[in-house]
């Protein structure tokens, strides 16, 4: 047996596991062990992705959802970094509120959607606002953590060169904290995608989330799974690209 099959490289290993799972699913469906109505076999789901383009304006919905995701990520990241900075700068506030924010990061904030519906109405503003709220906790926590852990000797170097407060932030604090802040931004982006699609689904408005809801309502189960699979693939691609960007940006450290 070839070595690559006994000890496959990580990418091949992942693909093999994925293929095996699909095969088991297909076989279980063919054998009648899984209802085709509840979980159609992969052989029906994959062709349905093509139909999403034709029948459901996949591109337009994709662009709409990702527009909302980026708007939410932008707003949430900006506010999150500002609050993270404040919690780092104000030690009392940091000690008082960091635990609350950590708790909110673990809470299912998506359940607050009725409140946002009342505040903003059934429109894109609600989706973006809920996405932004979900982005903020990881960005706040990682910004504070990154700034808190900047080595004091680097700050002392800045002091000996008589840097202004703004120069300290721009030339030392922020670059030194960037790797940790970037982790928060990546997490925030993923949280934004999850929450935007989730809220679209719940309030029946927007792009991909609404499409999944509509397909479900029409009992186009293969199409619904195809749409879910598409969102998962987008999310994984998103995560992979930001990971590569992070590696590239921080490669020299």
């Amino acid at each position: 047996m070839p070595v690559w099959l006994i000890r496959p490289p990580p990418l091949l290993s992942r693909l093999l596991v994925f293929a095996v799972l699909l095969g088991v699913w297909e076989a279980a469906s063919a054998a009648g062990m899984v209802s085709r109505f509840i979980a159609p076999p992969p052989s029906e789901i994959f062709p349905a992705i093509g139909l999403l383009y034709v029948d459901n304006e996949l591109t337009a919905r994709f662009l709409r959802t990702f527009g909302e995701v980026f708007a939410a990520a932008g707003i949430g990241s900006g506010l999150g970094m500002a609050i993270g900075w404040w919690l780092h700068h104000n030690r009392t506030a940091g000690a008082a509120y960091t635990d609350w924010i950590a708790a909110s990061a673990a809470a299912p904030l998506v359940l607050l959607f009725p409140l946002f519906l009342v505040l903003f109405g059934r429109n894109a503003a609600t989706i973006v606002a809920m996405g932004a709220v979900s982005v903020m906790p990881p960005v706040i926590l990682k910004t504070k953590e990154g700034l808190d852990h900047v080595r004091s000797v680097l700050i002392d170097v800045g002091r000996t060169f008589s840097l202004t407060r703004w120069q300290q932030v721009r030339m030392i604090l922020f670059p030194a904290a960037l790797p940790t802040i970037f982790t928060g931004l990546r997490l925030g982006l993923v949280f934004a995608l999850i929450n935007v699609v989730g809220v679209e689904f719940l309030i029946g408005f927007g792009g991909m989330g609404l499409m999944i809801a509509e397909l479900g309502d029409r009992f186009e189960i293969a199409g619904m799974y195809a749409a879910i699979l598409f969102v998962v693939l987008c999310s994984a691609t998103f995560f992979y690209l930001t990971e590569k960007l992070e590696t590239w940006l921080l490669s020299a450290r």
Partner: protein
Amino acid sequence: MSPSPALRISRVSKHFETGKGRVTAVDDVSLDIMQGEFISIIGPSGCGKSTLMNMVGGLLTEYDGDILLDGKKVSGCQPEIGMVFQEESTFPWRTALENVAFPLEAAGLTRDKRIARARDLLDLVGLSGFENHYPAELSGGMRQRIAIARTLAFEPRILLMDEPFAALDEQTRLLLGDKVVQIQNKLRQTTLLITHNISEAVQLSDRVLIMTFRPGRIKRVIEIDLPRPRSSEMMGSEAFGRYVAEIWQDLREEASKGLHDAEAAARQG
């Protein structure tokens, strides 16, 4: 009339309030440093050497007594006093060249001017050819040389070095000592060095100050009357050995006190 000192430390004391009461770290230290002079301060751990350095550098501003630079009181960090730290202090996100150019960038120099100056300084510390390397790609000794070049970029009147080679192995430390001698010969930089290493102090200094263990006072000042330039090859000479022995004789008693104090603290848990 004798020339006025570049830096005057006059009856400086520093106390810290701790959970166990008031601790005097530095007690009534006075010292005049003349322009172009290289002075080393040597003493056991915990004798207040770094505290004194931080006061001179402006990182500690509350103390008794006066620290005067050209007759003006030092009341905080200022560009005329540059510091090289014991800890690794290069910026990991900047190349060697960008690290050295850092203070010039902060001061608003044009890119061309700061890059030209940074190249000259990298050449001075023997790092030509490593301009585009990041600190992570360089050895500890090279990183400390970048930190020295970065501090020199601001052309400080006084250069303070707080055990800059403490984390390096002995061979690298000896070679860097030679490099500091070369820089000193070229720039005639007024320098105050804190060190634990007696040979290093003798090789580099015009005067060596021995400090007592807690509270830190100046126990003795020894003038090093050895011909310059002094390379590490000189360390084998009889005269060099005599200075090392003389300093160790004074330092040994203080180092023993420090050791006993550390052991007593460990026993108390």
